[in-house]
């Protein structure tokens, strides 16, 4: 400071000089430029998001729909040997299957569309619709009725968009007879995977995802939260806790497939838990999610003002009362944000679940957390690998379901967070 000019010799600043004016103008230009850049970034990411959602919805919409063909079935002439009294309750399925309903439906298709087309026009699952219709109203067994039944995959593909030349011709002729209609594919939302695209459903994978997420949440949230609380509130600050902190941070950055290998070796190899089960998937994803929850929770706990702790200690609250009455309620919004991020990541994980066998073909939804199952992202992966043309739209539809699940999960978490948010 010794060589600074004394104030008396300094000339008063002239704010009107051209140099000063141009400096001011430059400052405003920089400001505008920066704002435009920011706006461009936001617009670009918004456009990407819209493009993703738009294209998925456009392609996936077909996956939720099915093409049906109107077909007459004359039950009176078909030689169905069914005792009407047995068409009650659970015995009905057996009775109808035993009576040769599937064959009768095939015969009706051949009668309606000729021997060539009749053999391949209907979806494999079409007779199941007929079965449900009979169970709803057994009186049809004595009549001739026209039913709308789902068509086989190649014809379905051709009806919704470009298909094989042969199938296109079939669709054109059916359309001219006004026999085709479109309806909601309820089976897609209610059944599990199948080799036939018209019968493949998302419910198995969705239920698998829900069970897996439940296991993950129930393990990762309490363990992560308790670990964060202990490390922040109780643990002494020494070399060991530093080491633990570094390890947790590193764990959060480990590639997910390595957690899959760990799960494979530990849960399947050492503990002998069932392969492909949501239990093992959940355990593996909990390993992956826990560090994220620990880090976010520690930051949220750290952000609680020390004055609040002092205040509570000052009136004689015990350390655990300080934590549960004051620190935790104030940190909860941040902790929930971390949990959302962790769970969203876990929901989208595919690689570690492939390692523990969740890529198997599972044709029935899991009944519990130890049943074989698959999850939504793995189902997307599996269907995207299928040869059948019908699986293309199923893949997109599965992505739509995955995104809707993700949005629902986040909406719930944000709702919870806002409820716990305290203003000061």
């Amino acid at each position, binding site marked *: 400071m010794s060589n600074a000019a004394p104030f008396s010799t300094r000339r008063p600043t002239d704010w009107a000089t051209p140099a000063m004016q141009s400096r001011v103008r430059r400052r405003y230009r920089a400001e505008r430029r920066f704002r435009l850049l920011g706006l461009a970034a936001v617009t670009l990411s918004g456009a990407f998001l819209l493009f993703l959602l738009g294209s998925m919805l456009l392609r996936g919409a077909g996956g939720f729909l099915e093409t049906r063909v109107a077909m007459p079935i004359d039950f009176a002439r078909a030689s169905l040997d069914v005792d009407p009294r047995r068409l009650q309750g659970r015995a009905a399925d057996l009775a109808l299957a035993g009576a040769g309903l599937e064959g009768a439906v095939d015969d009706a298709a051949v009668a309606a569309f000729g021997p060539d087309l009749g053999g391949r026009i209907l979806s494999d699952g079409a007779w199941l619709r007929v079965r449900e219709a009979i169970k709803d109203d057994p009186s049809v067994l004595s009549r001739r009725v026209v039913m709308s039944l789902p068509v086989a995959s190649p014809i379905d593909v051709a009806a919704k968009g470009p298909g094989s030349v042969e199938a296109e011709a079939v669709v054109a002729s059916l359309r001219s007879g006004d026999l085709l209609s479109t309806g909601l594919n309820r089976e897609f939302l209610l059944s599990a995977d199948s080799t036939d695209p018209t019968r493949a459903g998302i419910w198995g994978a969705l239920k698998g995802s829900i069970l897996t997420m439940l296991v993950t949440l129930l393990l990762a949230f309490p363990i992560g939260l308790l670990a964060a609380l202990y490390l922040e509130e109780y643990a002494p600050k020494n070399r060991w806790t530093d080491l633990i902190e570094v390890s947790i941070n590193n764990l959060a950055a480990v590639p997910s497939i390595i957690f899959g290998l760990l799960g494979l070796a530990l849960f399947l190899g050492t503990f002998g838990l069932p392969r492909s089960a949501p239990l093992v998937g959940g355990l593996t994803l909990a390993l992956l999610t826990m560090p994220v929850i620990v880090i976010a929770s520690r930051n949220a706990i750290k952000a609680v003002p020390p004055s609040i702790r*002092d205040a509570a200690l000052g009136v004689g609250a015990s350390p655990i009362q300080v934590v549960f009455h004051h620190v935790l309620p104030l940190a909860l919004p941040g902790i929930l944000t971390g949990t959302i991020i962790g769970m969203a990541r876990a929901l989208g994980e595919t690689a570690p679940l492939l390692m523990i066998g969740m890529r198997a073909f599972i044709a029935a939804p899991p009944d519990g957390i130890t049943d074989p199952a698959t999850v939504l992202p793995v189902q997307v992966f599996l269907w995207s690998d299928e040869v059948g043309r019908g699986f293309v739209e199923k893949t997109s539809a599965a992505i739509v379901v995955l995104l809707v699940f993700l949005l629902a999960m986040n909406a719930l978490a944000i709702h919870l967070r806002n409820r716990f948010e305290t203003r000061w």
Partner: protein
Amino acid sequence: MSNHPPKITATHVNVWYGAKKAIDDVSIDIDQDSVTALIGPSGCGKSTFLRTLNRMNDTVANARVQGDIRLDGEDIYSPDMDVVQLRARVGMVFQKPNPFPKSIYENVAYGPRIHGLASSRSELEGIVQTSLKRAGLWEEVKDRLSDSGTALSGGQQQRLCIARAIAVDPEVILMDEPCSALDPIATAKIEELIHALKGRYAIAIVTHNMQQAARVSQRTAFFHLGQLVEYGATTEIFTNPREERTRDYITGRYG
């Protein structure tokens, strides 16, 4: 000054933060019936000393306290002392008003509730009302007890913190620069309050403001560089200090 034994006796107290010594061999008695002011320049250790009296320094990771501090003859640093109970008996008001982000009622009711001081809802309401009245806040907040405590003005917040402290019926109240974040009018109200509370609670107050020390206290301790320079009747300290360092400080030569 008084004819019964002091409420708190601190003898040969030393405090370290890591390797740095913050308090050097301080001995002070805090009287039951008077207000004791701790004054001194920034960093002289007066706040640190205050916080040893209810063991708030326990929460500082590398702080170490040595010496003998007794509350009614009980060693507060003995392993038998329950810190939670100690802090209920020795309440504290902090520099910055720090109400909980909860309603005014909840702020005051929290202490009695965790210590189980009220057996019924109406008894708790009674405690809240008495405490707020004693803190001179009742008339201003009686119609909005369910509003957030953080929505009050700074001075009101500090009086709420005092109400919160007296709700657990402490024997001693420690005040760590309670007016440093307040305007002169709010400060005057707190000082009036200290006058009103005197006698019922033993009060120790840390302050930067020498006029304040002169106005509210009967006894004053002057700290400098971690040492207790002089301790005696406030009138003596301000009119006829024994030590030159005290005289320099109160005449504004440094600090």
